[in-house]
């Protein structure tokens, strides 16, 4: 029990250390430049305390439960024995289709970690409020999660086949630009944002373990050169799915109103 409490305390301290620069900047500008009273100061301070405490508990829990198991799992699923690469003839006839479980794991882990990502929850809450309720927080989060799932699965496929990262990313950019042309204007900024917010606390460590494991198991790949790129995919594809989601829901709404009239 004491061991648990000590590690909880360390986690709290390190979270506090991480947000110290933010607090410093906020307080500095508030006191020196703005010189205005913050309304409901007590509430704001309480909120900050809750965020700090919540984040520390969240990280501590992840480190204790989900990360060790998830990382071990990524290692086991990408181990040469599991992939059947240990047999001498297998490495010759190795084909990208033999990695079905890896792709499925990538898909599932991308989706589920994104649903649990606190910063995406924050943006979804805000978008719901700002849009006056027209953006459904769960709809947005599921659209983003599907994007991350596709991105990470495609990213593992890229590591398996060893194709250059930039071709995928540039194609993705062209796709995003084409979609932007047709998407409703009010969603564009939010969609671009959703690429960056998805990959943080929960997703990055698990996805990094997956990329590292995969690139060190497959002959001809090195973790240092091929292990990167999953995060880039995970921040590109949500832009497309969120734009797609907006187009889809707008299309449905239009058809519905067309039927009524």
């Amino acid at each position: 029990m004491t061991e648990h409490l000590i590690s909880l305390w360390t986690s709290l301290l390190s979270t506090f250390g991480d947000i110290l620069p933010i607090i410093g900047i906020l307080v500095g500008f508030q006191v020196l430049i703005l010189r205005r009273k913050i309304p409901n100061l007590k509430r704001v301070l309480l909120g900050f305390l809750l965020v700090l405490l919540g984040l520390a508990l969240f990280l501590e829990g992840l480190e204790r439960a989900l990360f060790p198991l998830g990382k071990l799992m990524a290692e086991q699923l990408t181990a040469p024995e599991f992939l059947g690469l240990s047999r001498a003839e297998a490495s010759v006839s190795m084909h990208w289709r033999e990695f079905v479980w890896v792709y499925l794991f990538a898909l599932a882990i991308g989706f589920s970690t994104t649903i649990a990502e606190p910063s995406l929850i924050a943006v979804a809450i805000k978008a719901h409020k700002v849009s006056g309720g027209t953006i459904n927080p769960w709809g947005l989060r599921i659209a983003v999660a599907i994007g991350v799932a596709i991105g990470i699965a495609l990213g593992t496929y890229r590591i398996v086949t060893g194709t250059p990262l930039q071709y995928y990313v540039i194609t993705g950019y062209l796709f995003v630009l084409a979609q932007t042309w047709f998407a409703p204007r009010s969603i564009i900024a939010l969609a671009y944002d959703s690429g960056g917010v998805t990959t943080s606390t929960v997703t990055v460590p698990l996805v990094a373990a997956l990329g590292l494991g995969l690139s060190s198991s497959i002959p001809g790949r090195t973790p240092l050169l091929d292990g990167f790129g999953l995060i880039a995919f995970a921040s590109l594809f949500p832009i497309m799915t969120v734009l797609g989601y907006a187009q889809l829901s707008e299309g449905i709404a239009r058809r519905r109103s067309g039927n009524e009239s």
Partner: protein
Amino acid sequence: MNTRTLELLRPLLESIKDLLPIVGVITFFQLFVLGQPIPNLLELLWGTLLVVVGLTLFVQGLELGLFPLGENMAWDFAAKGSVLWLLLFAFSLGFGTTVAEPALIAIAEEAAEVAARGGMILDAPDAREAYAEGLRYTVAFSVGLAIVIGVLRILRGWPIQYLIICGYIGVVIMTAFAPKEIIGIAYDSGGVTTSTITVPLVTALGVGLASSIEGRNPMVDGFGLIAFASLTPMIFVMAYGIAL
């Protein structure tokens, strides 16, 4: 159970719903694909409990603290009317929150290893450290710059897509010239820079600014700050790779 306790439990239930998928995925793969029992079940349950409680507190704290604070500061800056101070604030927020970001520190160290193996820098501990440090400051600077550009966009009401297209073109051009080894790291560094506390704060700042300025729509103009913050690091990290 009366309605009041139910009301108190609701945020907790929400968090459980948020975490159900990941627990399900891990359990499924462990039991059915890898065919192994779950090790340390008690530890796992304790950890999951911490995660659920932590997420609940975090979300409550967002609404009480981070969101109101970010929006308030946006209103105060708008009332003060000094663009210079606002931009300085935007830069410090971007730079300050990124430079100490643990994920960035980790990725900078890996990048230094890649560079050392690729022969771009001397394979010695202090050369690597200097490289990692330089990279970290480069990324932090680029995020600061991104928030400044994003805030300027909100003030002027520029459409976001044109700026993003410029950014994409910048990425493509840099990719053509950057050393092969740095590309993967550069592309990834865009995603890892924005932390869990920065995102809500910056989002609230953007939305607050867009609501406080006449003629701006918080939905169209308020979002987009994070988008810049995940684009500029890609360009700057490749520039760093070319320069060294």
